[in-house]
């Protein structure tokens, strides 16, 4: 849109309209993130802090709980995000086929989990996966397991519960983005492909996925940022257990600050690990999905 140069008054109005938001962002985002950077070079307990140089970073490498939380967070990310994106894409493509009946019903049902609060659904999953609970009773009834699975007591299965829960909550949410994008693809492309005798699975990988690349990139980055900050689910389903097997970085920061004797400087250092991870992974995802020309 071409626009004439702004007059002096209009320029002032422009600043006036954005000023409240900018001031608030300055106070509650810019200032804290800089403060937290400064804090990450401080050591000490509670409010008694002194300059510690890189000692917090050295402490990171020697802290087995941090290494575990980092490993857990990256495990959730590496397994959960691809599974969810793939499933969301498949559901969206299926729902987009013109002859499908009950489309609205399927779409609403699959999207419904995205309406729940993270804490509420976490509690539902906690009760479903309890030792003698519904999931185990069903597995035994179906003959898939003899005595049920120790979901909350086993490090491996506890991770499975968390991954299942997050996938349940967010697949429909991502699917809606793909459905909206699919509706913008010109139908004649698929018609041409059909006339050329290109099979459905090839159409999916050669037409649908490339056409949806921007929205796939977007949802992948948002899911990555979300998973790196995972807190509500692990806090309410497993409390990070058993033996820290599901502890995430956000939860560790919370514990360092609010549950143990506060160690603000070190907590700030751990939080910057998330900042750096978000930056690196967003960059990598942009790089991988760039247009090669």
């Amino acid at each position, binding site marked *: 849109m071409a626009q004439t140069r702004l007059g002096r008054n209009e320029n002032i109005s422009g600043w006036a309209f954005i000023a409240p938001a900018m001031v608030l962002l300055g106070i509650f985002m810019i200032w804290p993130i800089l403060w937290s950077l400064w804090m990450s070079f401080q050591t000490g307990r509670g409010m008694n802090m002194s300059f510690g140089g890189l000692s917090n970073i050295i402490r990171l490498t020697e802290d087995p709980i941090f290494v575990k939380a980092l490993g857990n967070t990256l495990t959730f990310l590496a397994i959960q995000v691809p599974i969810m994106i793939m499933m969301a894409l498949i559901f969206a493509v299926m729902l987009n086929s013109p002859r499908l009946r009950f489309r609205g019903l399927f779409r609403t049902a699959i999207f*419904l989990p995205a309406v729940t609060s993270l804490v*509420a659904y976490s509690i539902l999953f906690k009760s479903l996966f309890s030792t003698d609970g519904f999931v185990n009773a069903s597995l035994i009834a179906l003959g898939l397991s003899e005595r049920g699975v120790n979901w909350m007591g086993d490090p491996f299965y506890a991770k499975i519960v968390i991954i299942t829960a997050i996938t349940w909550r967010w697949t429909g949410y991502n699917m809606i983005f793909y459905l909206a994008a699919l509706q913008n693809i010109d139908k004649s492309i698929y018609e041409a492909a059909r006339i050329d005798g290109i099979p459905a699975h090839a159409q999916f990988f050669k037409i649908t996925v490339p056409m949806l690349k921007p929205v796939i990139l977007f949802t992948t980055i948002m899911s990555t940022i979300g998973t790196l*900050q995972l807190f509500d689910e692990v806090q309410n389903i497993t409390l990070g257990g058993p033996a820290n097997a599901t502890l995430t970085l956000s939860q560790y920061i919370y514990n360092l600050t609010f549950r143990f004797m506060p160690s603000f400087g070190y907590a700030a250092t751990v939080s910057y690990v998330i900042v750096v991870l978000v930056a690196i992974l967003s960059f990598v995802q942009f790089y991988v999905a760039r247009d090669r020309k």
Partner: protein
Amino acid sequence: MTNRSLLSFVQYGVLSVAAFLSVFPFFWMVVGATNTSADIIKGKATFGSNLWTNIVNLNAQVDLPRVLFNSFYIAIISTILTLVVASAAGYGFEIFRSKARERLFGGLLLMLSIPFAALMVPLFIMFANAGLINTYSAIIAPSVANIFVIFYFRQATKAFPHELRDAAKIDGLKEYQIFARVYFPVMRSTYAAATIIVFMLNWNNYLWPLIVLQTNEMKTMVLTISSLASAYTPDFGVVMVATILTTLPTLIIFFLLQRLFVQGMLGSVK
């Protein structure tokens, strides 16, 4: 079976299973509210007769009117302030374009990737120093300048007809009057969609209220179900009733305003 009918058989099968698994936990929640805690952790998935007892017990353990008030108060005030501040900013960025403001807008994009975990320690110290721990303002203030909502309004403002602004100026309206009396009524459906999304975000907020709200009479519904469920021996019947109460407002909004709901969700991230 032909190739095509096999395909649609698979399609209906996959979608039916997905739909069933998506809806089942909601059914489980409703059934659970009618059962005893012992039945719930034994996996009983049929309706029981304990609903009234669960409601009575919940009411005895939690000051429900107070907790519901806290949730609604925080969510409503936050939503109103967010809409005012973010729509003004989106309007300002789009209508009054300048190089400096475009650069600032680019900066907002970078700030989107700042994780809350990196803010919560300094934010906590800030509010503790200001003596605002355990207050509503401590929850509301940091939530108001929401970058997603600013983006949403800037995007939506692209469809706002410039002629309306020009006409209003000729009529002698000041800039803030144009915003309040012309822009706001014209953009009703944009505001409605944003209201739904922002309300839900605030209603469901957990981590920051968990840090800041420390007494039972300040707790929100979400914090209440979390502490009920993390008790040493939680009464799951009671928890399920409380979980229904927590989920119901957003569920009702979704079913009544489904189209606006999806519009707001997609729009805030375009």
